[in-house]
């Protein structure tokens, strides 16, 4: 079975990437998507020096909210997927999870939340292309 990692941050571009990955998966068959949300806003625990249960819960709720649209899209399309929330720097985490999960490719938006509109490639996409050994599909 093919495995495709799709990072989601709740941005419209990321949702278009999910739509594209879902369409490609339905056509190719025998494909599972790995939906990944990365929480990088760890200011709370940086200040305190540790991450308590409450912080973790908040971050998870945040991740769930950011992935909600993508998940309902995949549920409606009947595409097989796993969902995971991870913590850290987005590009590094995306590539690490893709490698650990033995994904064949990564499908993602050219720009995410917080990237400047006029950029062709956002910083996360650029870094993922740099770090990932597997093919990366960029969706506008």
């Amino acid at each position, binding site marked *: 079975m093919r495995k495709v990692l799709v990072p989601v941050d709740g941005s419209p571009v990321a949702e278009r990437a999910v739509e594209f990955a879902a*369409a490609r998966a339905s056509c*190719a*068959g025998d494909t599972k998507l790995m939906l990944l949300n990365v929480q990088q806003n760890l200011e709370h625990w940086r200040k305190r020096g540790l991450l308590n249960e409450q912080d973790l819960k908040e971050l998870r709720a945040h991740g769930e909210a950011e992935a909600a649209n993508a998940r309902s899209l995949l549920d409606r399309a009947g595409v097989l997927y796993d969902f995971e929330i991870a913590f850290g720097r987005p590009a590094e985490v995306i590539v690490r999870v893709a490698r650990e999960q033995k994904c064949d490719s990564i*499908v993602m938006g*050219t720009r995410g939340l917080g990237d400047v509109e006029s950029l062709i490639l956002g910083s996360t996409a650029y870094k993922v*292309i740099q770090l*990932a050994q597997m093919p990366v*599909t960029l969706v506008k």
Partner: protein
Amino acid sequence: MAMRKLLLPTDGSASSLRATEFLVRLLAGQPAAEVHLLHVHSPVMAWEISPHVTAEMVRRFHEQAGRDAVKGARAMLDAAGIPCQEHLVSGDPAEVIASVAAREGVDGIVMGTRGMGPVKSLVLGSVATKVIHLADVPVTLVK
């Protein structure tokens, strides 16, 4: 959304052959798959042409160079039984890639991150960067 028509720009480089491998895996078992294999060559500048070189010789040279560039990819697609159409076009590579993608109505572009250009240290070659900028469809980059 159908996902069966893909554009594969190739220059015969190792990274464009890996892009072909990826595309073959992606399309394996899809009966309606169709690949547009594209090779772009630079236009000939007037100062490059000596009085002894005819337009016909230039045309034949490009045709041969183009065939050499697509040969490897073509063989892999043929072996996988994926129908493909060849395009040999002259012009700016990224602009040609984006315009052929639009004209043929492909669902995506699959290409190497770096071609045979001189700069190997870049994460993304200038052609790939410009294609991402110009193309309306998703672009898959293969190392």
